[in-house]
């Protein structure tokens, strides 16, 4: 209704109307005017309110993007590349524009514990067998079973934020499924012992498989770290512990043998040095002694040649003197009265190794 329509109609002159009616008219006019004024002011309020609403509607698209966020702008439903950086951004109100904000965490973490926890979320339990719907475990390449869980951290390249947000319905669930898949692949290709003793091999296999699955699904994420924890079932742990002890004993035995081997080679090398040194000494001595003997021979020869008998007798006697001095026992047989010279100092008894003197 326009303002003109709301104005009271004043077409008849007061002379044409009786006094009572005139009074009533006056009262009606006053009411009408009051009503018109009230309506006018109400419409003003409505107009102001509408203007405010209009402005609010137009400004409703303005969005603040925080430092830990990135935002994707859709215009008429179509993604506008690139993503919006932190700051204040103008956008037309929905349904023209739509802004989807994403928290940009430096590192996102996904955990796969389908091979670890029970159906109630408890840690692995001791039991005689695994109940498929209850116990979490994985089959290993040697047909055994282990409990295994893995955790993976990843980040999103800036160029992949739109894919991460728009390409998947439940992207976290998908990545978790990819990690579960990788864990079961890795377990199925390694022995239970390898899984618990060489976790790096398992981690490498998991990383490789996750990348493969992610790539197959055209998702671009950057895998940062993969951590795993693997244990054998509680019931068979003592047997594995005993094996670990035996393995440690084996390593110790081998190290001891290596030590002994090194030691015996070192001793042999020392002995070899002694032998070589002795050989050198002996050869030097031989050479020196022969030289000395030759010199002595040449010195003695003139004496010998002048009186051989006397020379021989003198030397034999001198030699016998030295020999008899050193001899322990001398049995001297002289007809019916044998005489024995006994050495005053008895010969020292040879001691065996480790024996007290």
């Amino acid at each position, binding site marked *: 209704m326009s303002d003109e329509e709301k104005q009271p109609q004043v077409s008849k002159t007061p002379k044409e109307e009786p006094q009572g009616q005139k009074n009533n008219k006056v009262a009606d006019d006053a009411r009408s005017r009051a009503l018109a004024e009230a309506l006018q002011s109400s419409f003003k309020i409505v107009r102001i309110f509408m203007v405010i609403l209009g402005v609010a509607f137009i400004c409703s698209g303005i969005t603040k993007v925080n430092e830990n966020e990135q935002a994707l702008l859709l215009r008429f439903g179509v993604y506008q590349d690139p993503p919006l950086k932190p700051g204040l951004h103008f956008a037309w109100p929905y*349904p023209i524009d739509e802004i989807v904000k994403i928290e940009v965490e430096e590192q996102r973490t996904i955990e796969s514990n389908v091979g670890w926890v029970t159906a109630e979320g408890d840690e692995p339990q001791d039991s005689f067998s695994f109940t498929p719907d209850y116990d979490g475990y994985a*089959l290993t390449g040697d047909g055994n079973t282990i409990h295994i869980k893995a955790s993976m951290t990843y980040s999103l390249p800036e160029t992949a934020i739109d894919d991460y947000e728009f390409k998947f319905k439940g992207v976290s669930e998908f990545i978790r499924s990819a990690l579960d898949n990788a864990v079961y692949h890795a377990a199925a290709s*390694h022995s239970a012992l390898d899984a618990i003793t060489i976790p790096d091999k398992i981690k490498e296999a998991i990383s490789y498989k996750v990348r493969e699955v992610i790539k197959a699904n055209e998702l671009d994420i950057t895998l940062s770290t993969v951590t795993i924890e693997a244990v054998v079932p509680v019931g068979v742990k003592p*047997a594995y512990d005993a094996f670990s002890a035996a393995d440690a004993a084996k390593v110790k035995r081998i190290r001891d043998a290596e030590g002994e081997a090194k030691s015996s080679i070192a001793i042999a090398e020392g002995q070899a040095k002694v032998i070589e040194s002795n*050989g050198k000494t002996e050869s030097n001595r031989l050479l020196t002694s022969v030289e000395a003997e030759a010199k002595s021979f040449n010195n003695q020869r003139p004496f010998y040649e002048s009186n051989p008998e006397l020379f021989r007798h003198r030397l034999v006697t001198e030699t016998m003197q030295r020999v008899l001095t050193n001899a322990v026992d001398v049995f001297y047989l002289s007809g019916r009265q044998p005489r024995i010279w006994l050495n005053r100092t008895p010969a020292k008894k040879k001691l065996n190794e480790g024996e007290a003197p």
Partner: protein
Amino acid sequence: MKKNHITLTIGVILVIIFGFMLLTFQVRHTEVAIRTTFGKAVVDNEGKADIESGFHFRWPWPVNEVYKFDKRIQSSEWTFEQTATTEGKPILIKVFATWRINNALKFFKSFSGDLNSADEKLKEVVRSSQNSVISNYTFDQIVNTNTDLLKLDEIEEEMKKNASLDTANFGIEIKMVGIKRLGLPASVTSQVFERMKSERQARIKETEAAGEREAKMLRADADLKANEILARAEAQAKVLRGEAEAASAKFFKEFEKNPELANFLFNLNAMEGSLKENSTLILDPNTPPFNLLTQPQQNKNN
């Protein structure tokens, strides 16, 4: 008059907005849509009815109707259930599949656009594929430490291929089928535990024997090397002695000047050398100088 203009403008704007709402529709980046005219899908020259994201025109109901579907990749997983390998061994398997709508019209015709119905159908298809594929492989091809014999990737690829054949007509593209869990029936796992224990016992004995063998080999090698070192040293010493003897030959020539004296001196030295320490001598009374002791007796007797 001015007031009429304002009212008219607002009215026109409202009519335009209302008209746009009736005559246009928007498809989001994550969606795909189809449009029907009096119930019949509107298809392009290539026979496709998919309407991609953006702003589009339409006639108001009942002329045109628009149906929108989520075109994002969806991940579905189903129950952990038992199947059998080609040799009849029971195995428990749980698979997941990632898929998306690649033909909105077929999807609409197959499931009336209901994602839950699609998920149920997929479950049926993937389960069938899973059972038929697993039954073509042995247990050793599902779990094996020898990666050449392990066929898990191939199994997953086969399952995807088989399932894709069935889902192609539903307007669904399967991106991948993956194993999410593998297990054994409860009765088998108890036997596995026993086997794991006995395997460890056997490995303990094997490890102990291997340790002993390796230690012995190390010691034997070391002894061999030590003996070689000593033998080389002995040989070196002999060589040195030989060289010394050769070098002393020139001095031996001196002895040729009087061989009788030389022999006498050698014998004397040899005798002294052999009787040097702790010797016991049994001597004839005529041996000089002891013949001096018997000489007076003889003289007396004479």
